[in-house]
């Protein structure tokens, strides 16, 4: 019975992906992409990876989907392309099909390959319980593989700096004034943003015991920030704003400072002193949440679009 459910779920994801990648309309593809992310999150929950499901919804479907919609609007693309088999003949489809089959074959080889002898999973569970962290994924992220997470924050920050460099010189779009603000959106924002802030704080704190954590909470806060920008409650801060730069970099700095301190204090980078791991992780996570939220929200350029006139 459960296998049948798995198969149906897998088929749903596959069909969404097929439709999304073969559709003519770009907006349709983006909306299908968000649905695809949500269906994929169901798969994650089915497999037991709830943290990944939260991240998939918040970041994969949410932030990426919103970025795609925003970019679609900025590109103002009208004519979508299409691998038009009717026009170019079936030969044009051979190369993509061959590439697709090659990639799928690579996946099949991965499935058939022999497994490693030393299983990490029970080891991680034991050590996480020993350190006092209820969620082994958070323990891996911030304790055992903390260095990877530090580099991950650096990647996020570098992405933001690169986007800033690309947007340099483009005129900033001002937020709509009080009179031009859309009333429905404004009311929605007044309800959603406080809820988002509370949920983000809870997610960050709960990440040590169960599914949750800094990245999912940061994405939630970023969504609230983008809503504030779109509704006009927040003026977009330019990339030269000192406050914005400080907040965006604060996550990396806090993490690096923790790494430096632990290297000096315990002799191992990010090896927390015995018994204090929980507090270290929580402290780092709370700084990370605000920093990630600022970085992700600032990836959205030109969000408060000028209100269109009746002729448009």
């Amino acid at each position, binding site marked *: 019975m459960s*296998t049948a459910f*798995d198969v149906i779920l897998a088929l749903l994801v*596959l069909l969404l*992906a097929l439709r999304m*990648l*073969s559709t003519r309309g*770009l907006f349709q*593809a*983006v909306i299908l*992409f968000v649905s*695809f992310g949500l269906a994929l999150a169901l*798969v994650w929950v089915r*497999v037991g*990876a709830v*943290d*990944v499901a939260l*991240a998939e919804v918040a*970041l994969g479907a949410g*932030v*990426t989907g919103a970025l*795609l919609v925003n*970019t679609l609007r900025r*590109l103002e*693309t009208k004519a979508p*392309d299409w*691998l038009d088999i009717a026009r170019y003949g079936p030969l044009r489809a051979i*190369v*993509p*099909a061959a*590439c*697709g*089959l090659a*990639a*799928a074959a690579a*996946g099949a080889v*991965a*499935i058939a390959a022999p497994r490693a002898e030393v*299983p*990490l*999973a*029970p080891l*991680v*569970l034991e050590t*996480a319980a020993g350190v006092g962290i209820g969620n*082994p*994924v958070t323990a*891996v*992220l911030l304790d055992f*593989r903390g260095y*990877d997470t530090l580099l991950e924050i650096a990647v*996020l920050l570098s*992405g*933001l700096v690169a*986007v800033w460099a*690309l*947007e340099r010189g*483009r005129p900033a779009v001002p937020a709509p004034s009080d009179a031009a603000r859309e009333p429905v959106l404004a009311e929605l924002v007044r309800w959603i943003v406080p809820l988002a802030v509370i949920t983000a704080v809870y997610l960050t704190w709960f990440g040590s015991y169960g599914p949750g*954590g800094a990245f999912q909470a940061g994405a939630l806060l970023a969504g609230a920030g983008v809503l504030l920008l779109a509704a006009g409650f927040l003026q977009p801060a330019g990339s030269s704003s000192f406050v914005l730069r400080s907040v965006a970099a604060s996550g990396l700095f806090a993490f690096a400072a923790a790494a430096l301190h632990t290297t000096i204090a315990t002799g191992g980078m990010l090896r927390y002193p015995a018994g204090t791991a929980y507090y270290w992780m929580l402290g780092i996570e709370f700084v990370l949440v605000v920093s990630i939220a600022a970085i*992700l929200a600032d990836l959205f*350029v030109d969000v408060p679009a000028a209100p269109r006139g009746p002729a448009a």
Partner: protein
Amino acid sequence: MSELVFPALGAALLGLGFGAVVGRRHMLMKIIALNVMASGVSLLLVTLPARVHGTTDAVPQAMVLTGIVVMVAATALALALAVRMADAGADVDVVQAGKEGEQP
């Protein structure tokens, strides 16, 4: 056999994504297809260990979480590049842009 369902889905998404990266001409579609490939790889990473141990492994989950965040940053950068390309006048349709580049 039932544990093969989701790894097979991962392989299929990998194939679909790569085929679309090669086959679709529009920049935005290529970026979306790259995301689909990343999802396929994430599925393979997380669901394959369950075949052997029967439990969920925390290390691939953390890796996939990191991967999702990195994919968001990479997608944002790719989209900014695409907008910049369009600003500079290049056609977002890759094949057209290639043809324009061939002209002396």
